[in-house]
């Protein structure tokens, strides 16, 4: 640990931050290796909160402290549309025990909270988050009296313990975390007092603010862990950890630990901060029961969630899952557009209705040509902006939209979401109109000549010019690819759509051996677009369109291939953007970065924000009418499942 740096950032924080008395100086791994959690402080009861009958019974039986003692000193007050009724069960399904399910976003609890547009709206688990003006250090204050679901206080110690014993533990993560790292330098985690911790960076690192509202700071899963519970499975704290792991069928403690770490595994009774915690996990179903210590109340002081439990049926087969959704076996679930007729037909019998939500994908499917192609002919063509523009003009987005999405999707270019603060409407219209004439003209200019009588253009070297699009099966319908193939064929560009194995595609692309690949264009919200390794426009992630250039830039010219000047400027701009020091600078540089990406058409979009019909069981209340669903909005996290309730809970037991 570099003490000089820590001292410096500490001073910066101390002078700039408007926070708290600092009770402990920054320490290293040692301090958190063997220290004990501080004893929980006594707290005066808050007052008149109400709780579910299920918990009231346990309180009466003396098995649980009263609700005032379970809630934090200042609970998070959530304003609900309608005050709900307690009780009942939500039904969902997963492919495997402990696996992901439609509503699992509700189990993400981060330091801050976002809205359905992917913007930060307020502190959540932490009640205050402060940043030094130069974005070097972030101070988080955990809600006083907030508890894990087993009643143990959640403190800054849990965060620091997680950082040193899990994230930075070379046995668990040999490569270390990449979330809290700028360049080669890890962030510095410091415990300031019992409930306050600070994350400091040597360089200004603005995306950390966004991290705090994302899955990367989901407590009890990818961030602060219940140290008191995890310690039993950690070899540094329990000499028998290996033995316990072997009893559970694992070869070593760290393997078992890895499974316990991420909440979406079939582990029961791990303390958590989510509205529901898993209490049973079998080969046929998982049961999640309300967390008696959940820190939210509604505006009238009723502790959330309203619904007692989640029952998640394990259904391995995708088609069977669909059949169950269409017969009303889940309380809320998505329906595939191509299968919508069954859902409409079955709605009365299955006792559900269909809501028209949208996907939060800026583009259902976007195509990225390999700008660092090893073949000089293809490299020259793919690097020609006119070629990419032509292919974008050649796509008949209206036809795709009308046929596959009933005209309800947006015929937009792939770019970031209009909800982003620095958004520019010019980006969504960039080469997004169908213009085969222009496409042909541009392709002629590129030098891809048409030979009379032949359906496809020849390459600039006069040879056959065929591009292979490698793809994995995705959420978008396969027919979309067929439309694009036809449209490009119309313009004389021969394309082969080749479905491959997931790993094979990545292996191929990482080596820079693909012509073109495609993926859905999600993660376009304010937060996601700003996380360097998350955005789909990252040159060496997911779409792998400029692996060698990126390598050159980040190895400072030691390896890779030198990018053209405008791309070097773009990489510089991105680096400057991630360390932007003011909102104005952030917006100005953000605009610059996305202006370049959008107008360079590195990702050629099709249609975006596609309609997503969702089935909602009759009698389920507080379900929003309009939602943008997706990874970027963290699925169910953004629409607050804890506020759902049944109009007649007794009928949904």
């Amino acid at each position: 640990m570099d003490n000089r740096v820590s001292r410096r950032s500490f001073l910066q924080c101390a002078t700039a931050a408007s926070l708290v008395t600092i009770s402990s100086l920054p320490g290293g791994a040692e301090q958190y290796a063997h220290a004990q959690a501080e004893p929980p402080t006594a707290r005066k009861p808050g007052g008149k909160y109400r709780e579910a009958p299920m918990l009231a019974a346990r309180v009466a039986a003396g098995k649980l402290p009263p609700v005032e003692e379970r809630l934090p000193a200042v609970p998070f007050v959530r304003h609900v549309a309608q005050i709900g009724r307690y009780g009942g069960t939500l039904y969902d399904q997963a492919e495997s025990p402990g696996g992901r399910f439609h509503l699992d976003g509700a189990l993400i609890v981060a330091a801050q909270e976002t809205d359905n547009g992917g913007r930060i709206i307020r502190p959540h688990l932490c009640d205050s988050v402060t940043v030094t003006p130069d974005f070097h250090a972030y101070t988080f204050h955990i809600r006083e009296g907030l508890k894990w679901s087993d009643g143990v206080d959640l403190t800054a110690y849990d965060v620091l313990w997680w950082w040193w014993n899990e994230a930075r533990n070379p046995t668990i993560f040999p490569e270390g975390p990449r979330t809290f790292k700028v360049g080669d330098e890890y962030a510095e985690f410091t415990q300031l007092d019992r409930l306050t911790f600070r994350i400091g960076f040597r360089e200004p690192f603005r995306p950390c603010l966004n991290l705090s509202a994302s899955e990367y700071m989901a407590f009890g899963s990818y961030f602060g862990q219940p140290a008191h519970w995890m310690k039993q499975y950690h070899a540094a704290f329990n000499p028998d950890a290996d033995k316990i792991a072997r009893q559970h069928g694992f070869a070593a403690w760290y393997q078992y630990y890895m499974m316990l770490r991420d909440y979406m595994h079939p582990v029961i009774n791990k303390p958590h901060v989510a509205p529901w915690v898993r209490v049973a996990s079998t080969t046929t179903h998982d049961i999640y029961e309300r967390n008696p210590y959940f820190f939210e109340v509604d505006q009238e002081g009723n502790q959330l969630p309203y619904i007692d439990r989640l029952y998640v049926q394990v259904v391995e087969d995708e088609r069977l899952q669909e059949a169950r959704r269409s017969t009303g076996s889940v309380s809320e679930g998505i329906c595939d557009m191509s299968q919508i007729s069954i859902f409409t037909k079955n709605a009365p019998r299955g006792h559900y209705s269909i809501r028209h939500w949208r996907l939060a994908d800026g583009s259902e499917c976007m195509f990225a040509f390999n700008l660092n192609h090893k073949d000089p002919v293809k490299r020259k063509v793919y690097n020609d902006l006119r070629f990419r523009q032509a292919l974008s003009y050649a796509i008949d987005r209206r036809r795709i939209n009308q046929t596959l999405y009933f005209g309800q999707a947006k015929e937009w270019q792939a770019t970031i979401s209009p909800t982003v603060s620095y958004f520019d409407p010019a980006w969504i219209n960039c080469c997004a109109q169908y213009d085969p004439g222009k496409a042909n003209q541009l392709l002629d200019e590129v030098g891809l000549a048409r030979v009379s009588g032949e359906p496809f253009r020849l390459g600039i070297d006069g040879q056959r010019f065929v591009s292979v699009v490698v793809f994995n099966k995705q959420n978008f319908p396969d027919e979309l690819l067929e439309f694009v193939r036809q449209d490009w064929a119309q313009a004389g560009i021969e394309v082969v759509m080749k479905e491959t194995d997931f790993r094979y595609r990545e292996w191929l692309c990482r080596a820079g051996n693909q012509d073109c690949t495609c993926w859905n264009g999600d993660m376009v919200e304010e937060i996601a677009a700003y996380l360097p390794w998350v955005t789909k426009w990252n040159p060496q992630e997911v779409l792998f369109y400029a692996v060698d250039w990126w390598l050159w830039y980040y190895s400072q010219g030691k390896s890779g291939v030198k990018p053209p000047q405008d791309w070097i400027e773009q990489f510089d701009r991105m680096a400057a953007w991630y360390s932007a020091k003011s909102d104005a600078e952030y917006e100005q540089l953000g605009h610059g970065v996305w202006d370049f990406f959008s107008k360079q058409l590195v990702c050629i979009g099709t249609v975006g924000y596609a309609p997503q019909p969702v089935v909602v069981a009759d009698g389920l209340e507080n379900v929003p009418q309009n939602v943008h669903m997706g990874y970027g909005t963290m699925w169910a996290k953004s629409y607050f499942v804890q506020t759902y309730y049944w109009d007649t809970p007794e009928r949904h037991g």
Partner: protein
Amino acid sequence: MSSPTLVTSGPAVVASGAEDVSWSQWRLIWAKFRSHKLAVVSIWLLGAFYLIALFAQFLAPYGPWQPSPYAYAPPTRVHFFFNGRFVGPMVYRVKIQSNPATFERDFVIDKSQPVRVHWFVRGAGYRWLGLIPSDFHLFGVGAAAQINLMGADILGRDCFSRDLIATQISLTVGLIGVFITFVLGCLIGGASGYYGGVVDNVVQRFMEFVTCLPTVPMWMALGAAIPASWSNLKVYFTITVILALRSWTGLSRQVRSKLLEMREEDFVVAARVAGATDWGIILRHLLPGFASYLIVNLTVEIPRMILGETTLSFFGLGLRPPTVSWGVLLQDAQNLAAISSYPWLMFPALMVVVCVLAFNFLGDGLRDAADPFKE
């Protein structure tokens, strides 16, 4: 196995009470085959299938990839009477009412005006047998209306046309692999069993080596090795040939053991004494001796190949869209909506069933016929 010896003994089959008639082997086989009614029907059916395959683009009113706005249009009804008068085959125009609120399409039939079905019309261009450019189609209704005898798929492509054109690939490319397996199996197994000794030993060890090659890693290696720019069809053809080069071993071992048993028979010795060459004996006397078994083997392999077209898709090796084959079309039909709302997508299943049954009945008939003296 005694039938070939009986052929040489001539008078074994004598028309009762008539003059001596000696029937040739082929005549005997044909007589026996004709008595198997199902087999006769099957051979006609298969003949029809192959004719369809040969002239598919001409018989189909549309191109296999020609999209239209009529997504999931139900089969078009062909009428013959308009206002009570016979006017010949005609269809009505259909208007699509797309309802974004329910994500459903209603097809409203406009009965005000008939659209005649015309014969020998010009339509989507194609190359017959991949060579002769043409745009003639057996029938069509022009651009004024749409005729989807078997409905349309999600992209509004005509299912009838696609079903017809699918026969081309399903009934040819896959079967080449079966044929190669069959020929290799008979020849190599035949040589091994007939000569025995060192030849047998070498062939058997080689065969065991080939059998040992693990298939899944081989497919994966092929998936990586085959140039990505190859068309689906070319990849599939290559794979079937490569698979055939691996899968002859089973048949060849069966042939070998049969021949080991039969080569000591009197008729073989007789043939040898009469000066027949080794290969002559194998091909003319030994293999026909258990033709019935070989035919069964062949007719079981063919349906397996048709049904298995798409199984290798996940390695990127099987047939996938935009290639049109029965297997590919049936993949579209494997969902609940197809069963409940678009049952016409499952028509290729019926074609596969009919075709596979026809092959099996044909095989059954041939097996009986190959052994004309068996009751």
